[in-house]
């Protein structure tokens, strides 16, 4: 049932579905090239690089993730003025509401 849902006109593919399709595509391309029989004559250095490529990509992605999160963490704004402004607003609000008869 889920298989047919993937291909029915109304169904949008889920993100998981997209990832699986993408991985299947890249995976089969890599397998075809890297694990090929000697019938496909690729230059030796290329084949040597191709085999561990998935691991390289994973590591590269890991580094990218760490760098991105680290950068975003470092540039995460601290809203000093907003906090200070909020304190002022609170005082003004309490004064005005008491004046209008609110019993806190």
């Amino acid at each position, binding site marked *: 049932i889920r298989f047919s849902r993937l291909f029915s006109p109304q169904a949008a593919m889920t993100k998981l579905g997209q990832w699986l399709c993408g991985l299947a595509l890249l995976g089969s391309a890599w397998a075809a090239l890297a694990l090929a029989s000697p019938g496909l004559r690729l230059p030796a250095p290329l084949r040597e690089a191709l085999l561990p490529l998935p691991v390289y990509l994973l590591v590269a992605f890991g580094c990218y993730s760490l760098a991105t999160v680290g950068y*975003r963490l470092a540039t995460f704004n601290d809203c000093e003025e907003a906090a200070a402004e909020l304190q002022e607003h609170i005082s003004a609000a309490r004064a005005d509401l008491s004046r209008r008869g609110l019993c806190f």
Partner: protein
Amino acid sequence: MAPGGTDKFSVLLPTYNERENLPLVVWLLARTFQESGNDFEIIIIDDGSPDGTQEIAEQLEKIYGSDKIVSLGEIISVLFSSGTAYIHGMKHATGNFIVIMDADLSHHVSLYFVLKQKEGNFDIVSGTRYKGNGGVYGWDLKRKLISRGANFITQVLLRPGASDLTGSFRLYRKEVLQKLMEKCVSKGYVFQMEMIVRARQLGYTIGEVPISFVDRVYGESKLGGNEIVSFLKGLLTLFATT
């Protein structure tokens, strides 16, 4: 459209034990809207708070008038969640735009939502802590790291097209919110994420506005310890189902 062709903004405030914060939030909202000349109403959905939040809401209704403050004090359900509060509140909303925000003063009241909506005629305007001069106050390094890390994972997995998915400070067109409420099934943080993801799928336009999230001034935080686990579970569910 609201009668007369002008926009009216209904602010939904789900509350639980917000006796201290509620009057301040209402005062800020009323002042902001009145100064800008926009028509508004504030709908307070209280879940039977034991600290007297409802009583404060009724006092506010007397001060501002019952066309401006609507206090819904019925106990909605045992499993009070943002979702049920919004559904309940929307039934009483007479505006054509709905603003969702927290009633605990963590969201800094801002008119930019209205301005941004007008600027791009967006269906949804979402507040973001991660872009522009948006940000937080009172967060330690650990909390910021978790926030950024979780957001990164969310961006990679869901590619949502919005920078802040777990935020709950948003403006929606009323029909858009109603449509989304029908489709969304999650709870808590994940509910807010699901709204944006589904909105994307349905082709709604989403604008973003930087917001300041100021950590609790009064009151206790309602956050528990199992959050990270339930967040990840929810994220994976969304990943697999949307």
